[in-house]
């Protein structure tokens, strides 16, 4: 219990630090949202119009940085993120439109990669030196070494251009409305195959390798030998003794990557023109869209922190030693 309270306290402290950095960083960037607008409409605006735009965006209002900070914390706690300076729509609404795509594509792919990778790693370690062990891990490690955008481009050339089987871009064909009917869902699935494939190819190797290596060490432990001596079935030794103890590093990594799912995969979205929050973040930074930026950064931070907290709890459940330590 003390362990959990300590973790919670750490969580709150980190959250506050992240919120503060989130407030400061955009304000340290060169330029301002008005500069970005001026850049779009250069040659026509007079300085008077520029001041009017600045006022309408609520910037350069002579408000002290301290009072801005207090207001920001208040707005954040009440989940009031304000309006985007690009479209003047509520930021929450814009993010809500993009996040399902990211969660579906990156989220599901991450879970699949973790399950597949950990499973393959465990089996490879159990039968180390075997055929499976000598082929799969090296192949996946090579996949991890490949740059994501390169794999994506190769997949596009092979399966969308030379063989036009799959769509080259977007999450759904422009003429089709997003809906819960088969034509729409199958279209969305078709659009997801290539980006998900590229993500799997480049991410699965990490899970395989970490799991295999930890498991190999674990298998040399005395309690494994003891279990064998007791005559326990192989399956039980592999799953309950070896894998349970080896999965801890992977689990932490998994929690972290689940947290990062929310940030989207900027490269996925760029190469496949897939809708999601990753590219939205880039766009927000380019246009100095502070409200949108802050909302996205906050979302990412909170998601990672919550995921880490959950991983801590899971670790505590799986490994009694972490509960009693110190």
């Amino acid at each position, binding site marked *: 219990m003390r362990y959990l309270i300590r973790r919670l306290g750490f969580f709150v402290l980190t959250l506050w630090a992240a919120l503060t950095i989130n407030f400061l960083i955009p304000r340290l960037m*060169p*330029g301002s949202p008005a*500069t*970005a607008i*001026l*850049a*779009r*409409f*250069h*040659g*026509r*605006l*007079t*300085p*008077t*119009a*520029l*001041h*009017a*735009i600045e*006022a*309408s965006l609520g910037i350069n209002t002579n408000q002290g940085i301290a009072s801005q900070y207090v207001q920001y914390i208040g707005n954040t706690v009440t989940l009031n993120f304000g*309006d*985007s300076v*690009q*479209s*003047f*729509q509520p930021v929450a609404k*814009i993010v809500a*439109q*993009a996040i399902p795509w990211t969660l579906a594509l990156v989220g599901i792919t991450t879970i699949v990669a973790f399950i597949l990778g950990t499973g393959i790693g465990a089996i490879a370690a159990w039968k180390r030196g075997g055929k499976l062990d000598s082929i799969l891990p090296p192949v996946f490690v090579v996949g991890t070494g490949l740059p994501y955008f390169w794999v994506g*481009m190769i997949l*596009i*050339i092979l399966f*969308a*251009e*030379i063989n*036009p089987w799959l769509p*080259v*871009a*977007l*999450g*759904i*064909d*422009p*003429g089709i*409305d*997003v809906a819960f009917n088969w034509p729409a869902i199958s279209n969305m699935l078709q659009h997801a195959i290539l980006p998900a494939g590229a993500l799997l190819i480049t991410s699965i190797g990490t899970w395989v390798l970490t799991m295999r290596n930890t498991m190999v060490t674990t298998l040399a432990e005395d309690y494994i030998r003891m279990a064998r001596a007791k005559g326990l079935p192989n399956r039980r030794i592999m799953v309950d003794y070896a894998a349970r103890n080896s999965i801890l590093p992977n689990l932490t990594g998994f929690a972290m990557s689940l947290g990062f799912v929310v940030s989207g995969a900027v490269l996925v*979205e*760029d*190469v*496949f*023109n897939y*809708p999601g929050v990753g*590219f*939205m973040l880039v*766009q927000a930074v*380019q*246009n*100095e869209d502070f409200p949108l930026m802050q909302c996205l950064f906050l979302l990412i931070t909170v998601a990672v922190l919550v995921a880490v907290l959950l991983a801590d709890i899971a670790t505590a459940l799986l490994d009694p030693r972490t509960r009693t330590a110190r």
Partner: protein
Amino acid sequence: MRRFRKLALAAAGGLMAAVLAACGSGTTSAAGPSGTLTISNESGGLWQCSFNPFNSSANFLSVGNVYEPLVFVNALQNDQTTPWLATKWDWSNGNKTLTFTIRSGVKWNDGQAMGAADVAFTYNLLKKNAALDLNSVWSVLDSVAQQGTDQVVFNFKAPAVPYFFYIADQIAIVPQHVWSTIADPVHYTDAKPVATGAYEVNPCTPQNITFTANKNYWQPGLPKVAKVLYPAFTSNDPANNYLATGQAQWGSQFIPNIDAFYAKKSPDHHYWFPPIAQVSLFPNEKVAPLNDPVVRKALALAIDRNKASSVGEYGYEPAGNQMGIVTPTFQSWVDPAAQSAAASFNYNPTKASSMLEAAGYHKGSDGIYVSPAGKRLSFHVINQGGYSDWVATMQVVIQGAKAAGIEIIPDNLSANDYNDKLFNGNFDLAYYAETGGPAPYYELRQWLYSANTAPIGQQASTNFERYSDPQTDSLLDQYGATADPAAQKQIIAKLEQVMLTQVPVIPVTESVDWYQYDTSHFTGWPTPQNQYALPAAFQIPDMGQVLLHLSPK
């Protein structure tokens, strides 16, 4: 749209299979619109579904096709005008009063009639909310009021003939009965616009906007294309793939190796890049020794413009000229005397060196000239790091300058950093392009008018090089006061001389309107033979004109 360019994969592959969906071959049996057109314009982000015609990040989606201005001014054909929501207009009172007669029989797409009251309301809305006035028309306007039943009178503080372009062509008319009820028009999203245009938004998602034909459009028989799809492309590659595979028919961005990647894929694939403005080197007038015209002239002589065009811009953007006139677009404005003087600015680093030596500059041991005051001719140039073509062009500039004994050090910056330094005047040299307009005057005024500039450290709206010359200002003012084309040409000829003798700005290449079009399913595209509008899909309100001219095959 944006010139955010990356190395695209120039993937060859004969595809164009029958699988390609959504091309909507038009079955033009009955009357009425048909066919589906897809636009491929790299916009750099997902759609936010705002169609507010006064929001600078959204209006390229709604001005021309959904909302309409009073008059269409064709930048490619010397200001040629086509009536739109106005039928007639006249300057009077020494070019200080402009009277529009508003078209009758036009209806908003909610069924209400459009009239002079809406027009007067729109301009006064901009007066009340300066943040909506994206063209700063109220810097010259005094009052706008309805007169009689169908006229609107614009009174100007001083003669401002060139502002006709901004007032009549660039500002969309909005319905009074809708916008008068909006408490905060600046922050208004306008997701479902009530407008007069040929198209309606139906529906918009972050990934795609569907524009459908307005069945009660006031021009009978138009539009002929039933549906326009506008997918959101966040980068060039997928947008280019859509064009190459025929999934999109109207493109508006840079395609590397365009002949192999696009044009050769089908005899129906065409492209055309009309030049509209100039990409130039802006020497900061407040930085010594760049404030010496001799140094600027030497710099202009040291730039191999043809090489900059062929090496930096793949030959897509033609070489610029020291007159400051975009050719061939504005060839008729070129003064013969200026033309021959401009030829004396052809690449010649030896001449640049001797010009510097004649002015008392001497070469240091490192081969770089030193001014009489002891300053080395070594300058930093700020550039958009994201524009790979601009970065490549700058390498050509740097080589040429080095041959003439001038050192240029490139600072390739992020867009935010670049804009900040540019607007505040914190640079030696800047590589930059203005928006220009339907005649050379607009770009020259953006470059040279001293009222547009600001002291170093304060944001200027244009004239970032901080040039200030009373004579030039008065020439620009005179131009604004006359509607006589002959007088305007004489003034432009004098401004060409300013460019040639003072060298306040050094044009390097000409920026173009990116445009690709597919004739397999649609006809009526703007072509070099029929330049009825600026052809890029991001040009407002020209894209509305293009849509009105297109018809399914």
